């Protein structure tokens, strides 16, 4: 029995016909979208989306475009890594966007410089003591805010047994309130140089991809990952099998919260300002990335790799629209259609694979 290592015999099992990973479908959708933009670009613009047709760069690629495609989704992508984990537990996190807003205001208040253009910083929130601090302090403040928000979410979901949708909706409203109250709606600006480096250039991308690799590993090779999938698959069974479900859920929400906090730090550093409206509807985009990437909202299924590809799809679409000079009024319409189309393609592939077998 040559296939003994895969089971205890019985039926014929043809190893070569293993079901192909879901991520491949999503990747296929990404390629398809890129090809579509290239074709439309060649027809209507006589230009290429990804390739350098004007000899502006040393390589054959339009490097500026490649960079912006991923830069513009890196920050929400970081949030999506956390949201993916929450969704895999069959939960949802509607608060991440607002947590970004609140954290942005609070963290930035500890990242301000003392003097702007020779004069005292006009936007300073606190006194002297909070100015010109080393960059690590606002970073820790940001992570701390995310931790607290995630912890509260987790406790509400796991111990008070409030449905995640409502618990995080409450946190969404609360955090948005905090963001606006913090400086009474006024923006917080002028960060120190050290802080400004965190989100400069390709840093957001580097952080995003490192975190993606780290959490891909954690979700697949550690107890944490296994229990996350188990809870989402059947919470009752996970409980009966002796997993400490509430404690684990709190940990998942804390990680999601801290990733949102980190995203806020990078966001403010990249934009050199914090504004209470920051992060608005990021939660939806993060969830969209995850779901386009094949994460099931009913829990138990999905992967970080899928989410990263989902983020890239959104990045390509965003840049592709500007590339094609699509009118802003049509952009949202077409974006809606493409998101639906990408998922439809994935569904169709899965069904075909199941039927073909």
């Amino acid at each position, binding site marked *: 029995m040559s296939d003994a290592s895969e089971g205890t015999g019985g039926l014929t099992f043809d190893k070569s016909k293993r079901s192909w990973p879901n991520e491949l479908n999503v990747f296929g959708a990404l390629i398809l979208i890129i090809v579509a933009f290239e074709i439309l670009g060649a027809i209507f613009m006589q230009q290429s989306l990804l390739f350098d047709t004007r000899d502006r760069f040393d390589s054959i690629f339009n490097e500026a475009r490649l960079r*912006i495609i991923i830069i513009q989704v890196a920050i929400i992508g970081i949030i999506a890594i956390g949201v993916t984990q929450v969704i895999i537990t069959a939960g949802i996190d509607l608060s991440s966007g607002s947590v970004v807003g609140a954290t942005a205001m609070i963290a930035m208040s500890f990242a301000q410089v003392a003097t702007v*253009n020779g004069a005292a910083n006009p936007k300073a929130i606190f006194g002297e003591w909070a100015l010109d601090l080393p960059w690590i302090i606002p970073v820790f403040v940001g992570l701390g805010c995310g931790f607290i928000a995630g912890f509260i979410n987790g406790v509400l979901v796991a111990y008070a047994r409030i449905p995640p949708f409502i618990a995080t909706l409450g946190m969404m409203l609360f955090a948005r309130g905090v963001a606006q109250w913090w400086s009474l709606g*006024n923006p917080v600006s002028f960060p120190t140089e050290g802080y400004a480096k965190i989100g400069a250039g390709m840093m957001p991308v580097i952080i995003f991809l490192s975190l993606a690799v780290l959490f891909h590993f954690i979700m697949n090779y550690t107890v944490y990952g296994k229990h996350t999938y188990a809870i989402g698959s059947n919470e009752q069974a996970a409980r009966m099998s002796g997993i400490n479900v509430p404690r684990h859920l709190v940990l998942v929400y804390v990680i999601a919260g801290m990733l949102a906090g980190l995203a806020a730090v990078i966001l403010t550093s990249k934009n050199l300002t914090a504004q209470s*409206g920051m992060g608005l509807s990021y939660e939806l985009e993060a969830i969209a990335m995850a779901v386009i990437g094949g994460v099931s909202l009913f829990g138990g299924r999905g992967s970080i790799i899928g989410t990263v590809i989902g983020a890239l799809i959104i990045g390509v679409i965003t840049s592709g629209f*500007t590339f094609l000079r699509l009118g802003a009024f049509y952009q949202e319409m077409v974006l809606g259609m493409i998101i639906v189309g990408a998922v439809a393609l994935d569904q169709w592939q899965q069904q075909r694979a199941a039927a073909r077998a």
Partner: protein
Amino acid sequence: EMQIGVSVARFDDNGLTVMRNGMTAFDDASDDVSLQMEDATDDVAKQLDQINNFIASGVDAIIVNAVDTNATEAMSNAAAAAGVPLVYVNRQPINMDTLPDGQAFVASNEIESGTLAAFQMCRQLRAEGKSGGARVYVLVGQLSNQAAVQRTKDFHDVIGMDMCNFITIIDEQTANWSRDEANDLMTNWLSSGDEFDAVFGNNDEMALGAIQAMKAAGISMDDVVVGGVDATSDALLAMSVGDMDVTVFQDLAGQGAGSIQTAMALANGEEVDKTVFIPFKLVTPENLADFQ
């Protein structure tokens, strides 16, 4: 033909729509320029990304209606690094003093709008003999929005002046720029039965919502001073029938067209003033005809 990328803070904002219309009209009339407009949906980060997308597409110039005027430094840096001219329109960038070469600003001064409206309301209340004490409700726009914060602050500053310190604010709440929310909020206020003399809305839409609520409750609009900002056509109509008393007009269409001209000049390498200033104008029933 010159390619210009435009990033507007919000497409569904009534005032900014007038500005956009000004730009589109200019674009339609001119063969030398082709606009690509993007909606930043009130998201600072998205706006910065849009600018980078414009740069990646190789546009000749960029026009920005900033979501948050505090976030303009990063935008100026990005455009300057790529050598693409940049024009800010309608909202004054925070780095005005240090704008790099090839960048300019076309707008009105936002501080004027709230101040003009508030001061006119104060004068009118005085004229109606309420200097012994007048009570006001304030409808605030979206709390995360700069203009809302600024206009509300202007109102506070005006009633802090000696001449207007007879005015007290009963309550100020947000109605998120929306007529419907303002209507409900006003009805809520009316249900307490408190006496009041005036209502100030951060924009005309909210002022109109308050008017609808008061009329539904049978309150005579002659007894209440209502002020707004924007001079939308709905507001001008309300003023013509005596419901609305004060609003403020800014030549947004003019700003839109002006920003394109400035951007084209910069792209052609011409010398341009760093600021092009287009003032606000107060609208009252007396000068209403000029704006209709």
